[in-house]
């Protein structure tokens, strides 16, 4: 039936909505069940993270970066630390570098677990969410052991890390890996290849590689479209070049009808990335060099200049752009938040889909509002 036109209505979805992953507000224009236009409105969680950064010292800014992507806060810590280290023209000791990789990858697993769980929730499967939560809990326990915090770590510092790891932590991490590896199959049985789940997600919200690049997507969202780009591989930092791991890419899966760049691939890339992260974690555990874990100048006062560093966090590239005038505080601080940029494609692919699809697409993009609003 072509040409159906009924009265279009504007609906507010969010900020108080179960599936906008926080306080995102989507203004959607619908024609019955069909979404004809979607406009994300952000800013409900704005905390002036960048402005605060310009008014505190470099070290003091680190806890604030935790609050941006609070699901994968280690990456933010790492990003700011690397940026300032580059500005200072120094590097963290080798032991700190390996531990940084270890905690970042653990955090990536924790973050992808949430993405996996909440995506299940978005398409109506409640149970995977709690399974994911159970495993994430174990990771958070590990972090708690490490630095006392479970969400906002403030662990990675300029010039190293704040606390050293001990044998107990290593044993516990190995224990976790042993428990976690068989779980992946459980997730796949429960959700990934569930027929209803596949029907809900395959061929929905397809992002072509060209479009993904032109919108500046990064992270799993970009790789699900088949673009092989990962900062860890292409511009290694913290010694990522030393580790053996693959970059999972989205692909056509004819058996279940998924195509490159659809919601299913965005979801599955994350599952595969968890496997790869576990691989990296295993390699780091094997080989932690002895020595200093923290080595920074007494007073962090970089020379005047500007710097931009990027790291691959769970949701994509986190970039820190800092201009220094030689004082203890940055003159200008700017963060490239991956969720913010990933969200920008929503109006494009959220057009002419059903309301239920819009939820699936939003869930598959996996945003964190703390990072979007900063």
């Amino acid at each position: 039936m072509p040409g159906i036109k009924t009265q279009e209505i504007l609906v507010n979805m969010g900020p108080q909505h179960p599936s906008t992953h926080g306080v995102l507000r989507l203004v959607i224009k619908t024609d019955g069940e069909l979404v004809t236009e979607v406009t994300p409105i952000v800013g409900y969680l704005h905390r002036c993270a960048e402005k605060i950064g310009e008014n505190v010292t470099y070290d003091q800014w680190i806890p604030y970066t935790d609050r941006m992507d609070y699901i994968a806060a280690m990456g933010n810590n790492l990003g700011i630390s690397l940026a300032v280290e580059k500005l200072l023209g120094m590097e963290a000791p080798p032991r700190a570098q390996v531990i940084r990789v270890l905690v970042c990858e653990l955090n990536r697993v924790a973050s992808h677990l949430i993405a996996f769980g909440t995506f299940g929730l978005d398409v109506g499967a409640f149970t995977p969410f709690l399974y994911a939560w159970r495993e994430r809990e174990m990771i958070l326990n590990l972090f708690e052991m490490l630095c006392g915090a479970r969400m906002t770590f403030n662990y990675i510092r300029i010039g190293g890390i704040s606390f050293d790891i001990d044998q107990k932590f290593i044993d516990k991490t190995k224990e976790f890996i042993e428990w976690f590896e068989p779980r992946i199959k459980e997730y796949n049985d429960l959700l990934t290849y569930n027929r209803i789940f596949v029907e809900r997600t395959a061929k929905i919200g397809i992002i072509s590689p060209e479009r993904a690049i032109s919108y500046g997507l990064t992270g799993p969202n970009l790789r699900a479209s088949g673009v092989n780009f990962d900062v860890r591989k292409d511009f290694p930092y913290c010694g990522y070049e030393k580790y053996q791991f693959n970059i999972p890419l989205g692909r056509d899966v004819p058996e279940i009808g998924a195509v490159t760049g659809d919601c299913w691939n965005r979801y599955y890339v994350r599952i595969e990335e968890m496997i790869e992260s576990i691989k990296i974690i295993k390699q780091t555990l094997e080989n932690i060099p002895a020595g200093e874990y923290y080595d920074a100048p007494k007073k962090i006062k970089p020379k005047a200049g500007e710097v931009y560093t990027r790291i691959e966090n769970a949701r994509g590239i986190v970039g820190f752009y800092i201009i220094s005038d030689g004082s203890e505080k940055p003159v200008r601080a700017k963060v490239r938040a991956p969720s913010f940029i990933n969200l920008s494609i929503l109006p494009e692919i959220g057009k002419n889909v059903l309301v239920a699809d819009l939820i699936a697409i939003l869930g598959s993009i996996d945003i964190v509002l703390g990072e979007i609003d900063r």
Partner: protein
Amino acid sequence: MLLDFGVLLLYIVIACGFLTAALVAGRIIRPNKPYKDKLTTYECGEDTIGTSFIQFNVRFYVIALIFLIFEVEIVLLFPWAVVYKNVGLIALIEMGVFILILLAGFAYVWSQKDLEWVKSEIETEKEHGTNL
């Protein structure tokens, strides 16, 4: 038989009575402090845009139409099903004809894509959209 219908009526009355009793009991014990914000319509924490009494998608109407025809058919078939055992082959044949005629209509509706929900018509647009 009339008695049984009486019981039915009684049950409906009792159901309403039970509900009323519960609401009245609730009215006595529950708090009642309405204010303007509490009484707004829920739209995810924002002010409602426009009215909610909207014109809806025609799709629902077509489905209801098709349903109605089938409902009438099913209701007509109930007496047939009840006596089927006693009548036998004639019932089978007659009903076969009856159902087949309607199935022709069903096939027509199906082939004309009236059973599709909104999805199919946007499929083409979407495919077009991916070739950016």
